[in-house]
């Protein structure tokens, strides 16, 4: 099989699986789960085969689908190093999450719908990964929105899940509206939407990017990223999307879907002028610090992790804004490993505590659930960027890059450095808090006291992903094997994307003489955060110590700065007001003038004309005579 066939199989297999499950296996949950999981692992294997047998040359194949005049809409693959990395991350993480779901959803009556949804989600995200042009990318982008809507609303009998899924869908639509405008403008300005053609065009003709149209296109394309990756100001959907089942949270809202936004930015990086990059960098840096703080104000374990995801998406956005999309992809890959582990660990805990999500009703779980506790702990250390864990390689490099930008391009960029460094401290704090409160100490509820380790369906994926969240970062050391095709745990073709950039940034830092100092500061902050969390939260009994000592601050963090309330107010008051004004305009102009006005004129004419129908034949003769005289007078030119 050549690469095109393999890629087509990878793309279409989950669609076939989703169709088969939806049409034939809706009532047979375990069969649906088996199909979905087998397809998941086949995809994982196929992706590995595809990347290992790839010759390293970008592959671009496209087929015409629809033609409008002289615009041909094509579907196709553009397979380069970025796509290889994303393909591996998506298939790998999703495959293990699907296996985990078998255990997590074992008491759920709607397994068919759930696993069908997972398959269609896989199809959508793989379409984004392989798309060769912006329109195809947009089609799959919307499919991701639809699949996430379906999966978040899995528990559709609860109001919260329904509202959360609607919120996710609508907020994403706002971003996507800008996105599609950007695509249209892109076609108008550059004359193509093909990624390779756009890349060549902007490389050959750099001044193209210096016009205000290019800035506008960049900003509009960024809207899509803002919606999908939940960046300011559209970050509000991500935390509510926790209403879905935990594996869905792991799959969509930690590992793959939000990462699609980052992947997209890296894909169209060459279209982003400096102004757009600045916006992305500043909003990302502010978001990473702010969301990191908010994670401290959540008592729901999944919500806290969701804020952590927001914070880490902020890191990736900052990396793109700093001019290192490769580092963003690096962090995306590492984040997929440890965040999937954290969410699956949370899922394992929630499952064995009978769907209890409040960390202050857990406690002492480490002894009862050793595998979950161990992997959760390892992933916590990874996300807190403790040295030699995967997170430290990607995160510390982004922090270093921010410092170098401040050193080279002006002191205002030191603020970015401070923000991302502060977020690193927050990460250590909230992860230490989660681990101390949920896993250490004494059980705070009946359910937690009787919790037990989950089944092998759940612990095996935890162990695999937990192992990776410890060691995945070691790819930067180039431990080649299999004739150089594999670099430690990943195929070299995928690590090609970010490892050179990683070394370049490290070298720059070393040349500037700040490499070790920066690393030490970051490590010291991470350790300080973990120790501080241990001291502050280690003795927590029934409630959050921060809430007890500073209820005002805690409330701000819990409501994440009243963003939701602000949007509620905007929609309920401002937008509603505008809608009512529009409704009045509609009433006055459309209803009264156009509809009722014409009806009234016609009716009035009829009411007058019906008077001539007197019912006497002789009268009609006189009317006729009158008409003839009128014509006669007209013909004579009397009027």
């Amino acid at each position, binding site marked *: 099989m050549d690469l095109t066939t393999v890629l087509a199989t990878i793309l279409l297999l989950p669609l076939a699986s989703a169709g088969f499950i939806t049409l034939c296996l809706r009532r047979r949950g375990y069969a649906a789960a088996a199909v979905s999981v087998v397809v998941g692992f086949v995809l994982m294997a196929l992706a590995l085969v595809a990347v290992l047998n790839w010759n390293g040359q970008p592959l671009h194949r496209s087929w015409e689908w629809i033609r409008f005049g002289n615009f041909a809409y094509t579907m196709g693959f553009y397979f380069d190093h970025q796509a290889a990395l994303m393909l591996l991350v998506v298939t790998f993480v999703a495959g293990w999450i699907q296996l985990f779901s078998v255990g997590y959803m074992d008491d759920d009556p709607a397994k068919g719908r759930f696993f069908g949804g997972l398959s269609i989600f896989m199809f959508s995200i793989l379409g984004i990964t392989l798309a060769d042009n912006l329109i195809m990318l947009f089609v799959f982008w919307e499919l991701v929105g639809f699949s996430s809507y379906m999966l978040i609303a899995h528990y559709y009998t609860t109001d919260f899940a329904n509202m959360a899924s609607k919120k996710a869908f609508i907020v994403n639509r706002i971003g996507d509206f800008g996105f599609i405008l950007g695509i249209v403008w892109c076609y108008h300005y550059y004359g193509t939407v093909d990624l390779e053609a756009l890349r060549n065009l902007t490389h050959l003709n750099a001044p193209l990017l210096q016009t205000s149209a290019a800035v506008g296109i960049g900003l509009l394309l960024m809207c899509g990223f803002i919606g999908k990756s939940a960046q300011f100001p559209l970050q509000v959907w991500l935390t509510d999307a926790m209403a879905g089942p935990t594996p869905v949270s792991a799959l969509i809202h930690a590992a793959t879907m939000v990462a699609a936004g980052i992947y997209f930015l890296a894909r169209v990086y060459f279209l982003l002028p400096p102004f757009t990059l600045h916006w992305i960098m500043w909003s990302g840096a502010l978001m990473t610090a702010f969301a990191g703080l908010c994670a401290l104000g959540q008592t729901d374990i999944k919500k806290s992790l969701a804020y952590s995801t927001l914070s880490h998406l902020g890191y990736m956005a900052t990396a793109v804004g700093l001019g290192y999309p490769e580092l963003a992809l690096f962090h995306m890959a590492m984040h997929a490993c440890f965040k999937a582990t954290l969410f699956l660990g949370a899922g394992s805990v929630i499952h064995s505590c009978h769907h209890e999500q409040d960390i202050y009703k857990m406690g002492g779980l480490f002894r009862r659930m050793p595998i979950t506790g161990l992997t959760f702990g390892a992933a916590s250390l990874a996300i807190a960027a403790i040295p030699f864990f995967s997170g430290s390689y990607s995160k510390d490099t982004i922090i270093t890059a921010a410092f170098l930008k401040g050193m080279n391009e002006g002191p205002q960029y030191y603020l970015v450095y401070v923000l991302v460094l502060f977020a690193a401290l927050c990460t250590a704090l909230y992860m230490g808090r989660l681990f101390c409160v949920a896993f250490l100490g004494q059980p705070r509820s009946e359910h937690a006291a009787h919790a037990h380790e989950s089944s092998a369906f759940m612990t095996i994926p935890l162990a695999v992903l937990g192992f990776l969240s410890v060691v995945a970062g070691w790819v930067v050391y180039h431990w080649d094997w299999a004739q150089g095709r594999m670099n430690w745990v990943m195929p070299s073709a995928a690590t090609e994307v970010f490892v050179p950039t990683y070394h370049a940034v490290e070298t720059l830092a070393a040349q500037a003489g700040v490499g070790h100092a920066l690393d030490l500061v970051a490590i010291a902050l991470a350790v300080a955060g973990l120790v501080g969390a241990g001291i502050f939260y280690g003795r927590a009994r029934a409630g959050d110590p921060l809430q007890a000592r500073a209820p005002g601050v805690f409330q701000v963090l819990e409501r994440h700065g009243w963003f939701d309330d602000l949007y509620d107010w905007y929609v309920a008051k401002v937008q509603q007001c505008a809608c009512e004004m529009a409704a009045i305009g509609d009433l006055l102009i459309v209803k009264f003038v156009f509809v009722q006005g014409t009806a009234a004129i016609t009716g009035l004419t009829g009411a007058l004309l*019906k008077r001539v*129908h007197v*019912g006497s*034949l*002789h009268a009609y*003769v006189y009317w006729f005579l009158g008409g003839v005289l009128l014509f006669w007078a007209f013909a004579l030119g009397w009027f």
Partner: protein
Amino acid sequence: MTPGLQAYLTVAGILFAIGFAGVLLRRNTLVIYMCLELMLSATTLALVAFSRFNGTMDGALFVFFIITVAAAEVSVGLAIIVALYRRRHTIQVDHLNYLKF
């Protein structure tokens, strides 16, 4: 002495006026209908007279068309009157006012 165009037109005018007065004044549908036919005949007479005094036969030719159309019209009109009488038992126009507002 042969009568001139003036005389023919006078006769046609008188016939037309009698027909028109009948249409306006009479109440019986059948009579009104006959009066309408009288008006038609008056115009036909005028047409023939013009044709004769202009020395062309165009008008005389038209008469055949008019007679044909009138015959068709009369057959339909009489049929309507008969049907009307069967249903209403009257053909007085004063009573035939169901379509008024």
